[in-house]
């Protein structure tokens, strides 16, 4: 029993250590976000047929991903250096950064609440959501070599 407890706590420790790097955390979150956006985009570009239930599931996944985006936890002070393309502007203007993220989440929530019934509605909603990607990356990300 004691061994089991130790084993479990070691595992937990290892797991928390693996997720203790905010830079890796936020990169994983953005990667997941890109994947979901890519999935919805296939429907928007008419490469896949519109299926209302499947689209709603994807939008909900996008919302869950956005809700996990806790700027304070993912962008703590000091995480501006290292292997990151986060722009210093994030820490200069944390309120502005959060506002862009809030708008992004609000646009997704509007889409999930309305549950698009046809591809044209989805296109409009997706366009609104996707415009936030560039708006945020325009100011808060720096491309590096």
């Amino acid at each position, binding site marked *: 029993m004691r061994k089991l407890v130790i084993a479990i706590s070691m595992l937990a420790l290892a797991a928390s250590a693996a997720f203790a790097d905010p830079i890796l955390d936020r990169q994983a979150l953005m990667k997941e976000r890109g994947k979901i956006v890519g999935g919805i*985009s296939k429907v928007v570009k008419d490469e896949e047929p519109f299926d209302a239930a499947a689209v709603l599931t994807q939008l909900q996944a996008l919302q869950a991903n956005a809700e996990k985006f806790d700027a304070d936890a993912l962008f703590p002070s000091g995480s501006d250096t290292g292997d990151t393309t986060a722009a210093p502007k994030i820490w200069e203007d944390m309120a502005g950064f959060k506002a862009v993220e809030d708008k992004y989440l609000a646009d997704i929530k509007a889409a999930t609440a309305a549950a698009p019934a046809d591809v044209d509605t989805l296109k409009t909603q997706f366009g609104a959501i*996707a415009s936030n990607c560039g*708006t945020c990356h325009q100011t808060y990300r720096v491309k590096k070599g």
Partner: protein
Amino acid sequence: MPWLKKLVGALVILGGVGAVAGWVLSAPVRLDSETLAKLGPGDPARGKRIFYAGGCTSCHAKPGSQGDARLQLVGGLELKTPFGTFVPPNISQDPKDGIGAWSTEDLANAMLKGISPSGEHLYPAFPYASYARMKPADIADLYAFLKTLPAVAGKAPANSLRFPFNIRRGIGLWKLLYLSDQPVVPFPDGTPDPVMAGRYLVEGPGHCGECHTPRDFAGGTKKNAWLAGAVAAEGSGVVSNITSGKGGIGDWSEADIVNYLETGFTPAFDSVGGAMVDVQRNMAELAPEDRAAIAAYLKAIPPHPNGYPPRKKPAS
């Protein structure tokens, strides 16, 4: 010491000749009448395409503005470069603070020759080194479109440049080295039309090379690393290699490039960022065949490895 006197005399003469030659060589040269005759009447509908291809709003709209406010071309953006800070001016139709009093010829001289109506050299931060490759008729169309946009009062702050870059006359020598209306990438006869149309859009109005090509010590684009990506000329970070060379976009299909220009998403569903965000929004306003032409050209140009140094990975 008569030889010293002779030497000094020779140097003075040489210096004088050099100064006179420099002054003559650096003189602003306006467009000739033959080019001006090709301007034509101008059509605002066609000019709208040139306006978005040229990305005028990216620098001349009020910084941070969105939607229709992007058409209020008051200037004021600060471009911080190693030469100093350039501030794009008001190019709205306000006759006093903007360019409302300019003629078509004035706009053509500014865009094709980098010369203001008063005959001064303009700084090549205004990308006339690319615009010089444009057709005069497209300038006239752009002029007609600009006339449909609002007049907005208010002068943007002046440039703040370091010596010797604050001496405008010096730009004349820069022009001798770098100002040309000739295309950058040669293509043989029989090259498909979209590639040639793409060359015009990319090398001319689109002025893609201004950011995507590394520059030499004098600030000219290196034609032997055309579109290979570069350390950002203003701000921080790097600008992508958009050739098919190592580090570039060789694994993107033409459809991928078209989609990126239209939606801002890369094939891996990363999104457009930095200064390219405004550019992509401009590209999205073009007709599908224009985006396809840009893609065809980018796939046809010589591949180059990255024109910027690799990122120094932090020690872990």
